[in-house]
């Protein structure tokens, strides 16, 4: 019975995790494309806030370039990330993916902060990233930067295990447009277009739009699922104006996106969801003789409908959530001398969640932040960086309180302060070696849902059960340390990293073992409460080995990751009390081999991925939360293209050509998906 009740509740939105976030370092003032062309390698600002060569950063960073994106078999950002070391990408359903850095695999992963040009696309209400709601097309991405390890001192809350910073292309001085159309089996169709238009000498406009349709995968027998299951649909439109006046640049933009798909909630219950999001943003950067300054602000609106199209079964209960995020950030980067820099910044953010399924009509918090970063080079071959950030959060609730109230309203009148930090030492050893020791502490915020969610189970029970958040939850501390060495041998780059990450007081949503964890409230109408809770600590440690290079028109990349997880979480014996078990859900071994060839008119690329077996949570048709084995897998992805003219390309691509059931790391077996299409450049 408890399982059934939980299912109903969780199906509507239950489980969850932390949240929140930050504005990036220096929005779009840096011309990444021009700098990359000059130094011959990608440039990033995601580590210490100043432009750095990818080979010189004081952290584990992966940068995927526009060229690599264009030739990849992948069709979305998680698909691009899955072939790199230290990353777990679980495509739970056809539309829902989660990216975990160095372990801690779970649905609605709240520990990875995701930004597009510095604007948070991570969704605060649940602390998740909907990769089909980014509002950006692959064709307009200049590069994708993945920082592995806490980066909270630069980005704030939720950059707890890492950051994905997606940088879009700047328009050129001439008008240009790109259109991509593709179709394949399993109902896959995608149409995307981008255009860049100079408007006079100083103003540029950029427009993009996309439409995606895709059938859901076939569920294995015995899994609990809503009927019907919605297929994936995603539509996006975006626009931006930018103007350069001397050393200053101003941008104004906005986007709208919608997405419908079935997802595993943090409770591991499958539920159909519909999201609609919009944003407006503005930024101003100014370049000076001493460095630069930036001022950025944006507003994100999200409307999320949980439990649509059959997710709610016969009880017709759903959980709409509205979330609005307002963020403003200012930063200045000073060149102290020829090599050393100081960066200081401040940020204010307000995140507000409204809906009927929560403690009160509105649950909200304000966050004020100050950060500073010092990057010093006491001698030519040594770099030292240290950064710290103070975040002060004020939590609150307002509006009508749902009765019976399961918490004292005063419990929401709460504030806390957290200090995040990062530090790194980089030593160049010889002409081609680089030794790196770095670490830090970041925080994952409890999400608005985990603070203030409240949803009665629909099924009749002797005593009503309510799944509820807790205003007393504390931010989850994530400590990390790593030692890395990179070595260049001509065009070949070798890298080895050992890492250790500890997560304190991880937050989880109730599983189906409600009994021991229920709180009884002896109100005039007694109720039982099942809460989101801090369920324990765990640590991951391991090694990452990478090599990459290029020989004439052939480029190659291999990597291997070993990840071990230890912890004292609440256990996985039936009935499962909380749906969080990173030791079981994180693969211990992963290896990738990628090859690419570009011969001018012809190009081809392939990726072979090995992932060790795991066990993943899912509800059975008997409404029990169970572990399902996901077999180890060797998945093959490939893409080939032929350029009929410089402006017209035909391509065919396929994912999981080897038909490995465990390729997606999901209880729902992976299938093979093949598509073909055309890409036109005007």
């Amino acid at each position, binding site marked *: 019975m408890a399982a059934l009740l939980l299912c109903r509740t969780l199906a509507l939105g239950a489980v969850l995790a932390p949240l929140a976030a930050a504005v990036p370092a220096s929005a779009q003032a840096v011309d990444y494309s021009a700098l990359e062309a*000059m130094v011959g390698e990608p440039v990033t600002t995601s580590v210490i806030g100043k432009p750095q060569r990818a080979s010189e950063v004081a952290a584990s960073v992966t940068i995927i370039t526009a060229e690599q994106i264009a030739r990849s078999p992948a069709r979305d950002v998680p698909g691009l990330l899955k072939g790199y070391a230290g990353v777990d990408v679980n495509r739970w359903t056809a539309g829902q993916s989660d990216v975990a850095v160095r372990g801690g695999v779970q649905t609605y992963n709240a520990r990875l902060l995701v930004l597009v040009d510095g604007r948070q696309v991570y969704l605060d209400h649940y602390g998740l990233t909907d990769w089909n709601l980014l509002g950006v097309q692959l064709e307009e991405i200049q590069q994708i930067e993945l920082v592995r390890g806490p980066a909270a001192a630069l980005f704030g809350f939720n950059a707890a295990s890492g950051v994905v910073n997606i940088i879009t292309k700047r328009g050129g001085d001439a008008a240009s447009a790109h259109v991509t159309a593709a179709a394949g089996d399993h109902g896959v169709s995608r149409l995307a277009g981008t255009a860049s238009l100079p408007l006079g000498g100083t103003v540029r406009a950029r427009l993009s739009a996309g439409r995606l349709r895709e059938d859901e995968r076939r569920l294995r027998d015995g899994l609990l699922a809503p009927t019907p299951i919605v297929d994936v649909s995603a539509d996006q439109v975006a626009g931006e104006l930018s103007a350069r006046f001397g050393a200053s640049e101003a941008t104004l933009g906005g986007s709208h996106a919608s997405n419908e798909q079935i997802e595993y909630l943090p409770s591991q219950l499958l539920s159909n969801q519909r999201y609609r999001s919009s944003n407006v943003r503005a930024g101003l950067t100014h370049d000076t003789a001493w460095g630069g300054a930036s001022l950025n602000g944006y507003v994100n609106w999200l409307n999320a409908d949980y439990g649509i199209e059959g997710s709610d079964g016969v009880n017709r209960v759903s959980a709409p959530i509205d979330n609005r995020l307002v963020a403003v950030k200012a930063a200045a980067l000073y060149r102290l001398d020829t090599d050393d820099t100081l960066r200081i910044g401040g940020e204010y953010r307000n995140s507000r969640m409204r809906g009927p399924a929560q403690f009160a009509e509105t649950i909200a918090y304000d966050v004020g932040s100050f950060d500073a970063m010092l990057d010093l080079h006491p*001698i030519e071959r040594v770099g030292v960086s240290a950064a710290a950030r103070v975040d002060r959060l004020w939590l609150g609730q307002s509006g009508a309180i749902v009765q019976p109230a399961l918490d004292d309203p005063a419990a929401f009148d709460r504030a806390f302060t957290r200090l995040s930090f990062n530090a790194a030492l980089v030593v160049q050893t010889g002409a081609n070696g680089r030794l790196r020791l770095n670490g830090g502490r970041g925080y994952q915020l409890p999400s608005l849902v985990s603070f203030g969610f409240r949803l009665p189970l629909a099924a009749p029970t002797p005593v009503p059960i309510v799944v509820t958040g807790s205003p007393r939850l504390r931010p989850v501390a994530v400590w990390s340390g790593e030692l890395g060495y990179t070595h260049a041998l001509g065009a070949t780059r070798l890298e080895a990293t050992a890492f250790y990450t500890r997560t304190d007081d991880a937050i989880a949503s109730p599983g189906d073992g409600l009994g021991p964890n229920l709180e009884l409230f002896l109100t005039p109408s007694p109720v039982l409460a099942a809460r989101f809770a801090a369920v324990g600590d765990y640590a991951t440690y391991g090694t990452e080995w990478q090599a990459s290079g290029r020989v004439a028109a052939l480029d190659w990349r291999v990597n291997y990751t070993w990840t071990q997880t230890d912890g004292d979480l609440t256990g996985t014996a039936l009935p499962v009390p909380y749906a969080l078990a990173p030791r079981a859900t994180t693969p211990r071994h992963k290896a990738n081999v990628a090859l690419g060839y570009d011969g001018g008119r012809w190009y081809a690329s392939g990726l072979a991925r090995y992932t060790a077996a795991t066990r993943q949570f899912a509800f059975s048709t008997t409404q029990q939360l169970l572990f399902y084995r996901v077999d180890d897998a060797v998945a093959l992805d490939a893409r080939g293209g032929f350029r009929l003219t410089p402006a017209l390309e035909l391509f065919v691509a396929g994912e999981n050509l080897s038909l490995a059931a465990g390729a997606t790391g999901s209880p729902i077996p992976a299938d093979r998906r093949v598509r073909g299409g055309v890409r036109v450049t005007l």
Partner: protein
Amino acid sequence: MRELIGAAVVAGSVVAPLPLRAELNVPIAVRVVSFLQPPLSGVMPAAIVVAPGNAASMADAAAIERSLGGGAAAGKATLRTKRVPVTALDSLSGYRVAFVTAGTRDDQGAIAAAAARGSVVTITSDDACVQAARCVVGIGSGARVQITVNRAAARAANARFGSAFLMLVKEI
């Protein structure tokens, strides 16, 4: 203090300057020009400073001309080159950018003086010219692109670069 730290950390490591190749890496040099502030625009004459009779200099000049062809885009500017012999450096004053070829080391003092008078940004593959503050920008090549900017020479030539650019190069 820096010396102490350096001695402690670098002990055992190989300290060797990156070699600069004889011929200028022209595509990189053109990109460097695009980071000048304020940005250049329109057709921009660029000098190739040569030492007539010096084979290395003439070969370098020819390579630069081959690489640039009829003109190369540097941001919103288009560079059109013309040779300027070291015997006629007064004519440098009509240029904003000059590529200093190899084989002109004996004349680098005069080139620097002329460049300062005419606010000309000098770019070379000769690291010694940059180290001596006689050229503004040095471009090394090899497996790893290395760009050096001499602050004193830049100041003398009234040249300013964007801060993002300066954070990626070696400034001396």
